[in-house]
């Protein structure tokens, strides 16, 4: 059984009298350990797809089975636990909580699954070490660079041992050097920790890190190909 299995997902918004089909029958299966990049122009439905996969939103119809759980049949309010245990999120805007230190941000998901304080601290520290930020544990987000903030967010996505990481434009707010750092980190997490990574991006360079590339257009899957990842080339760096 696939880790992620969607069948005929539709997401239809009613805008005035017009029906907008953000997703128009998407069926995709993703196996454990894959590194998938999802690309597409804005309005292609990739973000909607991502939100549904991340259990942040529900499809209008269709089924979505996540690690054996029928998400579409589960009440949205009960999905908090699913998000907590199965999914780690990394966002474009980092989405760290202000006025809260790096380690407190990383501990946060464990507060919601009632991990004891001592263990919370230990695991958070380990996660920060894994992203190379242990020495910045007590810095506030605004005392960290964008790349560091994103690595804190990645550490946060790791602490609950979720098998899947959803990364929504994770390099969108980062310069090339930091982007490379972050993407290398994702690659490591995929290879060394076996995390399933689903990455949304509109940058072909970034998509190159993935082992599979899915392209969206007009709410539908346009292409779905296995690819050999290549690290960002120095040439493209010069181009930026």
């Amino acid at each position: 059984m696939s880790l992620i299995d969607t069948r005929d997902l539709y997401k239809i918004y009613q805008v005035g009298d017009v029906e907008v089909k953000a997703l128009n029958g998407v069926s995709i299966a993703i196996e454990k350990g894959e590194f998938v990049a999802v690309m597409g122009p804005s309005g292609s439905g990739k973000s909607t797809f991502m939100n549904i996969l991340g259990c942040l939103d529900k499809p209008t119809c269709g089924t979505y089975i996540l690690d054996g759980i029928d998400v579409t049949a589960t009440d949205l309010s009960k999905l908090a636990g699913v998000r907590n245990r199965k999914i780690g999120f990394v966002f474009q805007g980092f989405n760290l909580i202000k006025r809260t230190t790096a380690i407190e941000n990383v501990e946060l998901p464990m507060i919601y699954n009632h991990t004891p304080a001592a263990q919370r601290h230990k695991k958070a520290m380990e996660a920060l070490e894994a992203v190379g930020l242990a020495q910045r544990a007590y810095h506030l987000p605004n005392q960290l660079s964008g790349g560091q903030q994103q690595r804190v967010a990645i550490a946060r996505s790791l602490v609950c041992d979720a098998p899947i990481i959803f990364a929504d434009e994770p390099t969108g707010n980062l310069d090339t050097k930091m982007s490379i750092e972050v993407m290398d980190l994702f690659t490591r997490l995929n290879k060394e920790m076996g995390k399933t990574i689903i990455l949304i991006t509109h940058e072909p360079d970034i998509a190159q890190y993935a082992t599979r590339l899915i392209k969206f257009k007009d709410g539908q899957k346009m292409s779905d190909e296995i690819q050999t990842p290549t690290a960002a080339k120095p040439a493209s760096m010069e181009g930026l």
Partner: protein
Amino acid sequence: MIDSFLAVFKISLKAIFANKMRAALTSLGIIIGVAAVITVLAVGSATKKSIADRFSNMGTNIIFLRQPWDLDESISSPKDVTMDDVVAIREVEGVSAAAPYIQTSFDVKYKNTSVSLSALATDTDIFKAYDWSVDKGRSFTEKEIASYAQVMVIGATAAQTIFGDVDPLNKTVVLSNIPFTVVGVTKKTGSSGFGFNIDEGALIPYTTGKVKLNSGWQSSNRRALDRVVIKVEDFNKIENTKVDIQNTVRNTHHIHPLGKDDFQLDDFASFVEQAKSTATTMSLFLGIIGAVSLIVGGIGVMNIMLVSVTERTREIGIRMAIGATSWNIRLQFLVESVTLSCMGGLIGIVLGVIFTLFVAKYMSLSAQLSVWAIVVSAGFSAATGIFFGYYPAYKASKLTPIDALRYE
């Protein structure tokens, strides 16, 4: 679980202290409300107690017997209140003292000093009735009363005024050209009885006053008394005792069973009750004003919490994305508003206590800080936090993660 709750509590504290000025202003309403409720209730109950004290000095278990000033004209031959009544009343069950009472003012001369003094012509039962006691010297004896002796027991303040540092005992003073020997000084009471302040007055035997000074009730009867001061043993049985006294006096006055009373019995019980209930109404009224300001403070808390929820929509989205349930979010905001209002409540209690002590000091009321008021206002401020924090918290918890995350 407790760990997690502590963590949520910490998050809330952090959110509050991130905006100190705002938190302070928000709490201000609660602070003022709680302080007002505590102060008003404390001052209210102090006032009530002070009224009660004043009346109990005067004697709430005191009944006066006297002839009415506006005597019913249908009574053809009214009898004066005399010692016969006093003697009879002393036998009534439940009466612990009955004293004759004739009050007059005199100029009292001692050497070159002349002081206007209120003198009470009475007998020794007056000490029992009013809980007075003799500090120096003695009271008058039965023999002195029977023999119209010109003796006087003088009040502590009056003694000081007239004699200064001289020992007043066995000194002679002159009242209306009649010399009196001071045989005793009463102990200072510090409060005035009803219409007669013993500290600044003097006591003489009723017989002497009546016969030699010709004072008192303008009656041809040389035995007539102004009134009789009666003390009952048990305040709670005052109504029954009053009926017994009434029957006794009707008997001594030989009133026909169908005839009307030619006397009246006054007691302060109803008067005290009324004064107390006025004080209660007053403090209730002021307490309501305090409560209203608490409610207004609560609305302030709600307002700020709503702003806070809106401001932190994105944060709510993040929390939801990483696994916070609606309940977690609701709890966080509820804890925040309860903490906010409880901090206000705590400061309010401290201020209320300070105000109360201040008011007590400058209004010479005994501070009656009621634990009850403190507990209630603490509870009320927590309840305010829950009640007015619930809606904002509910609103926050009802956000969908995706909408909250998209919020800019």
